[in-house]
């Protein structure tokens, strides 16, 4: 790409904070099984065909690869809030998952300080349980101790605003409105202090007042934690929360720099404010 403006990393000043995440020439490749046939995965004949073909030429033909991230390098430091931007399918979420250690890298390495964690406990929560029990379950799933959960329980419930309209926390989560459930999930997920926090479009949930509260919560987490990564299509929330932005396009790192500069280029690229 001719107009790549990626700058070389500035020489480390003596006062530069310690690095928390180092990506070293990272490539990520997805393997999709059962793709690439016209009939798709569902058809039994297609599955049979795949097996037969594999037998004949001795290699896996039903597997397609998707090169999601190409040769991305960056160093994130303590105290930074880094936005990840790019058009749909540019590899932002994939890169985030790899930083979290939840996806393998094809080439290169990702080094991290401690265990970076994705914000979100949705998968650990159960709709049939009460909000109260979900707070405990979610906290334990994130690795908090029982004492920590007890200590922060009130805070989590107050922040979610679930009890503002009556005693909803003692009702099963399936009775919540989608907004209420999203607020409780965010409140649980952000209750833990993280060394490196990874947020994927989490700010889009809840009503306007809750969005404001979650933005300030992110700022708090950022002050207490090491580093925050934020994936978002909302340019305003990137501007409000991040001081550095990585711009990915087609899996390549197109630009890495201060928020204002990168966002200006990005908006020129996408054609106006998104």
């Amino acid at each position: 790409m001719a107009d790549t403006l990626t700058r070389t990393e500035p020489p480390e000043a003596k006062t530069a904070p310690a690095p928390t995440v180092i990506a070293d020439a990272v490539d990520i490749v997805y393997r999709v099984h059962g793709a690439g046939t016209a009939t798709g995965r569902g058809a039994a004949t297609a599955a049979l065909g795949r097996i037969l073909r594999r037998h004949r030429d001795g290699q896996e033909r039903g597997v397609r690869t998707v090169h999601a991230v190409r040769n991305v390098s960056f160093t994130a430091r303590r105290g930074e809030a880094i936005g990840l931007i790019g058009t749909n399918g540019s590899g932002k979420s994939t890169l985030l998952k790899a930083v979290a250690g939840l996806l393998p890298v094809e080439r290169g390495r990702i080094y991290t300080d401690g265990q970076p964690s994705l914000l979100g406990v949705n998968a650990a929560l159960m709709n049939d349980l009460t909000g109260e029990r979900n707070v405990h379950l979610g906290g334990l799933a994130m690795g908090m101790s029982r004492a920590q959960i007890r200590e922060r329980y009130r805070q989590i419930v107050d922040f979610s605003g679930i009890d503002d309209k009556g005693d909803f926390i003692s009702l099963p989560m399936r009775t919540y409105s989608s907004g209420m459930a999203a607020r409780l999930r965010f409140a649980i997920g952000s209750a833990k202090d993280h060394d490196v926090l990874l947020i994927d479009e989490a700010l889009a949930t809840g009503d306007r007042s809750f969005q404001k509260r979650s933005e300030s919560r992110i700022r708090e987490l950022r002050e207490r934690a090491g580093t925050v990564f934020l994936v978002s299509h909302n340019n305003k929330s990137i501007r409000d929360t991040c001081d550095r932005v990585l711009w990915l396009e087609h899996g390549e790192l197109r630009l890495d720099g201060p928020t204002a500069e990168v966002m200006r280029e990005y908006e020129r690229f996408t054609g106006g404010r998104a």
Partner: protein
Amino acid sequence: MRQVLLDELPATPSGPPGPPGPRGLSTPADSRPAAESAADLAARHGLTVSGARPTLPAYVRRLWHRRHFITAFATAKLTAQYSQAKLGQLWQIMTPLLNAAVYYVIFGVLMNTKRGVPDYVPFLVTGVFVFTFTQQSVMAGTRAISGSLGLVRALHFPRAALPLSYCLQQLQQLLFSLCALVAILLAFGVPPTASWLLAVPALTLQFTFNAGLALVMARLGAQTPDIAQLMPFVLRTWMYASGVMWSIDTVLKDRHLPHALTVLLEANPAAVYIDLMRFALIDSFHANRLPDHVWAWATGWALLAGVGGFIYFWKAEETYGRG
């Protein structure tokens, strides 16, 4: 939680950054050479490779750290099961009771079968409950990873927590079944004796065996989800061979089967654990009906499956939920 896993990285002395490598004469003003590699920078600050498999002792420590999650997840699954039913948690005890009632009606009343076994209904119900414990643990284990991919892909925890939690849920379920079983035993005039206490070591060994088997199946099921479709047939075959509905020793007494088959039938772990529970709970099930060295078999199977299964599962820890 900072772990040192950098076997592959060049050993760099931690502490104040010194001039790395053989080029020791770099300018002292700039503390690092301009072209310090990412690996050196990472090593200097104690950063570790993301998503690498911990050592076995570290893995056990992390799992222990998550013990409250394991128990909370098991209990949550158990309670969520009947939360939509009007009778709620009453079903925990009603389900095994109804199960036993079906067996009583079919075998005890309609067929009036004894098959040369005294106290046939308690004999049968004990067998069904004990085998169901292993069967359900194996089934839940097979789906433990492949059925919880959302959880595995979103959160960090030792993945063994999932199959272990599912086994714990089955143990809780079995304890409810045992309450029903005690009611049945008393109803059929089986007197409570001190030997009932033997159920505790027998169940402990069976739980260890189940957990190990569930861990093995969890790894296999994570790699090939199709196994979950196959398992019900394997498990049903296993049930018919395990003397749930017939007495192995009675059958063996009458016939002259090849020695290998006899050993196979008697050493079958499911049969071993079923017979131990029958021996513990049913007064008329005497020690002479147990195969030789039955406690040794029970312990051996538990250790083999428990330790082997755990190590086998841990070996693929970094691959779960990927691809």
